[in-house]
């Protein structure tokens, strides 16, 4: 039979006997026969004498006995109500020769005795608590005392209770509970030493864990006493509890009871006794996990701090916790590194929650860790320690974000982490920085930040595996890398200094750091920097213009002042020559503005910013031609806006070079060309020769595209480059002949596309362009071309296969013709359009 089956057998047998005795006992109760009832109750209770059951099963048995014992209690009460003095029953039950049943019965009568008021509650309680000493067998003693605790629960002479007064006061109440607690704890501890060798130790410990609640209940009772106030708790209750905890020298008990104390008593009590509590912590056995105890106390207090309460300012909780931890570190040699780090982490967490402004506390904790880590000789940390350091460094981020960079110890600690973990911390740092929404407005701040997030910015020097290889199968890693880089890139948007000079320094510095990131990173990180640069360029330009304006004003003022000075001198001369001379009127006083109030021109010129941009984009050009081309074009527009013709041209030409050298994909070419045309059209300050060169080149590119329809469309598009603006615009450029050439060329190409029957579509598109120029009065675009083209389309459209393509073309063509028809009717355009034959 297995041990478990045996247990079930014992329990079933015992329970059956209990039921049997209880049955006859109830009959005796019904017959109002006290003697028989007592004798049968004793028989029933005798089952609780067993030592065969495990605590769990003993509990089952205990519960079923207690169930029936309630009837006995009621019986005693009814006897008392009928006139029997309880003291008689109280004596009679003590005639029972067996100690366990006797004491259960004594407690049962005791409860009735207290209720009857025949004797003061305190005296009865004292007697009971004394008598239960007779059971020294741990399990039986614990359950007996639990029954005592349960029975007396509502009968303690607590403040405000009906038993207060003659029955005693709260002192009697807590002394009773404390004594029961103390004895129960001793029994519980003794269970550990109940014979058996090491092999049964685990089992024993488990059994003890099953019973701990019995001991803990006493603490709950204490916390429920109304009459126990903070003073009483501090002066009597807690010292007594802690005395027991320390003196029992038992690991399980100490750990459990300390935690119990934290959980059951109110926050105010803890605040009043924190020092005592923590001093006790240092006296616990080595194997007790003090960290979890301290942690739960800190959690408790921080929850209190976060809620309605406040930690009183005269209580230096942080110092107390720290002293405690320091002492523990001094005294315990068995703490491993991870555990020490965890302790500091908890303390720091506590500081963060309860003392949000005290960065020095956080820094202190980090410092402690740093010194511990530097003291460990071993080259690399074990895995758990690494995880702890990572945790330690991540925690302050959520509440402090960038402020952590003000903590000297933070970066130092980072260096203890391996690259991979440092990267994790860095990611959290960046995330919380972004989340915090502050601005990165100084070079120093950024320097610190970049130092902290180095693992995101560049590869590890030792290993090359910073950024995953593109062709690597690990897509998750790649995605993670992308996400990280995006985060870093987003940082750029937080770099905002009101001073353009500072901003430029910031960007340059960032550029330097990002530049170290290698090909894979710059694709993510540099573009936002370019846009930040473009924004800056505009600002600088505005500042420069403002400065020029102010200077001009100043110059005018100075001239005026000089004139007046001259006049004054002349007048003085005249006055000297002719004392009779009367000046024609008073002279104006010119007040020159205060030097310091004059806005200074930026130290970094706009030109320099563009140089900076040029350098960045060039750096990316080889690896990211497509992207760089766009950025060049963007920069060109910006430069053109700032009226830097040469620079704009340079950017354009860089873009063209890229197009020629790097863009091989025909689709990319097409896209680039569209952008180039667009850029050229939105620039307005090119020198005419430069412009000529650029548009000619563009048109050539268009004509050299691979696919005919692309060629056709792009050439058509390029025609617009030759017909820009109206006469009064700065970028006025009209070359009607080139326009016509382009269109005719396009028609020719379209004609060559007949095989793919895309030609009709192209024809209609070209027709639209013709129409456009015709309306704009391009002198070379004559009505005959339109008429001819329409005839051509009419001819080809009929031979088209029916299908989607044809429907589409027909739709477009129909709309075009409708437009022409409308123009023919409108008053202003009637004459011009009437010659077009549809």
């Amino acid at each position, binding site marked *: 039979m297995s041990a478990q089956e045996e247990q079930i057998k014992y329990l079933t047998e015992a329970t059956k006997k209990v039921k049997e005795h209880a049955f006859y006992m109830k009959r005796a109760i019904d017959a109002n026969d006290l003697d028989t009832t007592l004798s049968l109750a004793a028989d029933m209770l005798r089952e609780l004498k067993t030592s065969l059951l495990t605590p769990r099963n003993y509990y089952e048995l205990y519960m079923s006995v207690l169930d029936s014992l309630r009837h006995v209690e009621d019986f005693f009460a009814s006897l008392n109500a009928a006139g029997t003095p309880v003291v008689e029953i109280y004596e009679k039950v003590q005639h029972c020769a067996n100690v366990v049943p006797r004491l259960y019965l004594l407690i049962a009568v005791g409860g009735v005795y207290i209720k009857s008021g025949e004797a003061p509650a305190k005296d009865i309680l004292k007697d009971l608590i004394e008598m239960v*000493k007779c059971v*020294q067998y741990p399990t039986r*003693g614990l359950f007996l005392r639990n029954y005592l605790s349960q029975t007396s629960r509502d009968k303690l002479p607590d403040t405000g209770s009906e038993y207060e007064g003659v029955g005693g006061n709260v002192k009697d109440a807590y002394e009773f509970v404390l004594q029961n607690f103390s004895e129960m704890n001793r029994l519980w501890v003794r269970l550990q030493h109940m014979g058996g060798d090491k092999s049964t130790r685990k089992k024993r410990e488990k059994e003890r864990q099953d019973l701990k609640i019995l001991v803990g209940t006493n603490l709950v009772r204490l916390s429920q006493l109304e009459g126990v106030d903070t003073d009483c708790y501090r002066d009597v209750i807690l010292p007594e509890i802690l005395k027991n905890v320390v003196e029992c020298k038992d690991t399980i008990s100490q750990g459990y009871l300390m935690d119990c104390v934290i959980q059951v008593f109110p926050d105010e009590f803890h605040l009043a006794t924190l020092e005592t509590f923590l001093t006790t912590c240092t006296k616990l056995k080595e194997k007790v996990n003090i960290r979890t105890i301290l942690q739960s106390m800190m959690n408790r207090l921080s929850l209190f701090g976060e809620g309605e309460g406040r930690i009183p300012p005269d209580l230096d909780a942080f110092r107390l916790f720290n002293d405690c931890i320091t002492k523990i570190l001094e005294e315990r040699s068995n703490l491993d590194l991870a555990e020490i780090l965890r302790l500091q982490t908890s303390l720091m967490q506590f500081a963060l929650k309860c003392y949000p402004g005290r960065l020095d506390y956080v820094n202190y904790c980090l410092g402690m860790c740093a010194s511990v880590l530097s003291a460990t000789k071993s080259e690399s940390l074990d895995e758990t320690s690494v995880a702890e350091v990572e945790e330690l460094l991540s925690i302050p981020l959520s509440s402090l974000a960038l402020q952590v960079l003000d903590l000297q110890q933070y970066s130092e600690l980072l260096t203890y982490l391996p690259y991979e973990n440092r990267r994790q911390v860095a990611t959290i740092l960046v995330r919380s920085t972004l989340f915090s929404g502050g601005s990165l407005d100084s070079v120093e701040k950024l320097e610190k930040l970049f130092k902290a997030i180095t693992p995101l910015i560049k590869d590890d020097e030792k290993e090359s595996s910073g950024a995953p290889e593109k062709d690597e199968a690990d897509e998750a890693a790649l995605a993670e890398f992308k996400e990280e880089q995006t985060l870093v890139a987003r940082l750029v948007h937080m770099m905002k200094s009101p001073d353009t000079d500072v901003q430029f320094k910031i960007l340059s510095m960032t550029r330097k750091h990002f530049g170290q990131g290698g090909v894979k990173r710059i694709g993510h990180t540099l573009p936002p920097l370019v846009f930040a640069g473009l924004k800056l360029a505009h600002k600088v330009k505005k500042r420069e213009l403002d400065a020029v304006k102010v200077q001009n004003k100043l110059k005018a003022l100075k001239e005026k002042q000089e004139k007046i000075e001259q006049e004054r001198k002349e007048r003085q001369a005249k006055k000297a020559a002719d004392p009779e001379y009367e000046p024609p009127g008073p002279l104006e006083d010119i007040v020159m503005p205060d030097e310091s109030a004059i806005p200074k021109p930026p130290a970094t010129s706009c030109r320099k910013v563009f140089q900076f941009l040029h350098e960045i984009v060039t750096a990316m050009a080889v690896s990211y031609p497509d992207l760089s081309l766009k950025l060049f074009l963007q920069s060109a527009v910006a430069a053109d806006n700032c009226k830097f013709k040469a620079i704009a041209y340079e950017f354009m030409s860089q873009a063209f070079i890229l197009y020629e050298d790097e863009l091989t994909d025909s689709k990319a070419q097409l896209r680039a060309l569209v952008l180039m045309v667009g850029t050229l059209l939105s620039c307005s300050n090119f020198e005419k020769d430069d412009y000529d060169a650029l548009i000619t080149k563009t048109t050539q590119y268009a004509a050299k595209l691979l696919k005919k329809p692309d060629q056709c469309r792009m050439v058509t598009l390029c025609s617009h480059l030759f017909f820009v603006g109206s006469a009064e615009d700065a970028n006025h450029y009209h070359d009607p002949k080139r326009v016509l050439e382009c269109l005719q060329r396009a028609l020719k190409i379209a004609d060559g596309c007949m095989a793919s029957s895309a030609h009709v579509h192209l024809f209609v598109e070209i027709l639209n362009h013709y129409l456009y120029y015709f309306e704009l009065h391009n002198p070379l675009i004559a009505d005959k071309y339109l008429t001819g083209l329409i005839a051509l389309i009419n001819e080809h459209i009929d031979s088209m296969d029916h299908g989607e393509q044809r429907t589409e073309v027909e739709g477009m063509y129909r709309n075009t013709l409708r437009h022409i028809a409308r123009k023919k009717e409108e008053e202003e355009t009637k004459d011009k359009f009437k010659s077009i034959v549809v």
Partner: protein
Amino acid sequence: MSIFGFGASASLNLTLSPPPSGEFKDIGKPNTVSSTKDGPPPLANDSPEVRKVPIYTGTDKVEGTLSLTLPQGKKLDHLGIKVELIGRVEMFYDRGGVHDFTSLVKEVDAPGTIYDSKEYPLSFDFEKPYESYRGLNVRVRYFLRATLSRNYSGNLTAEKEICVQHITNEPEINNSIKMEVGIEDCLHIEFEYERQKYGLTDVIVGKIFFLLVRIKIKHMELAVIRRESAGSGQNIYNESETLIKYEIMDGAPVRGECIPVRLFLKGVPGELTPTYRNVGNRFSLKYYINLVLVDEEDRRYFKQQEVTLWRKVLG
């Protein structure tokens, strides 16, 4: 009753007035709970039925009436009527071991002829030195016996039992019992009982203090033992009777533990009597309390202490 068919014959009858104490004792009632094996064997000429017997203290007068009943129209010749009061120690182990320590004879009527029923008042004023006692080997009895002597056809007799109990004053000296006992390096205990002398309904209160515990104690009990010691010289018959084994501790205590003792003598089954130091040089009866510790191998460690019992009230 006469067997010769002369009809109803004369009879003697003893009737006792209620005793000064007004107390009676049930005799012959079996013990409800007995810790001994079979209970004491019935003594010779002990009537089995339950009867109420008046209780007298040592100095109480015993009063009553002797009535002689004669059938109507009969006469009775006799050689005298006497009533004896006898105090007697009976030794069970020794057949015929009957020793009267008190014998008082009263002549209530001189020899002659009696024609009518008649009553004689009785009054005995005498010292009753011992308590009535019913033990295992010994008993102490007091009884009245009336005898009407005749020449022939035998004597007429009647007997009546009385019970004597002595009430003692609270002893003036009553020290506690305190003692340290132990087995070297194994077990050291100190026990203390509040008093040495107890009334029959008192409570034995004490405590056991554990100074050293190296054995695995299973439980501890307090036994009440009655020792009857009869005879003298070579023919001493000792009989010990454990009246109760009262468990006072369950499990093993640790050093420094102090276990309370509280034993209600009222709850001890088997009738307790006072301690009898010496009853007519015939026997003595002593009580002991025995503290027993039982270890896990069922070895017993014990220490016995005599306690003196005394009677506070009759009953």
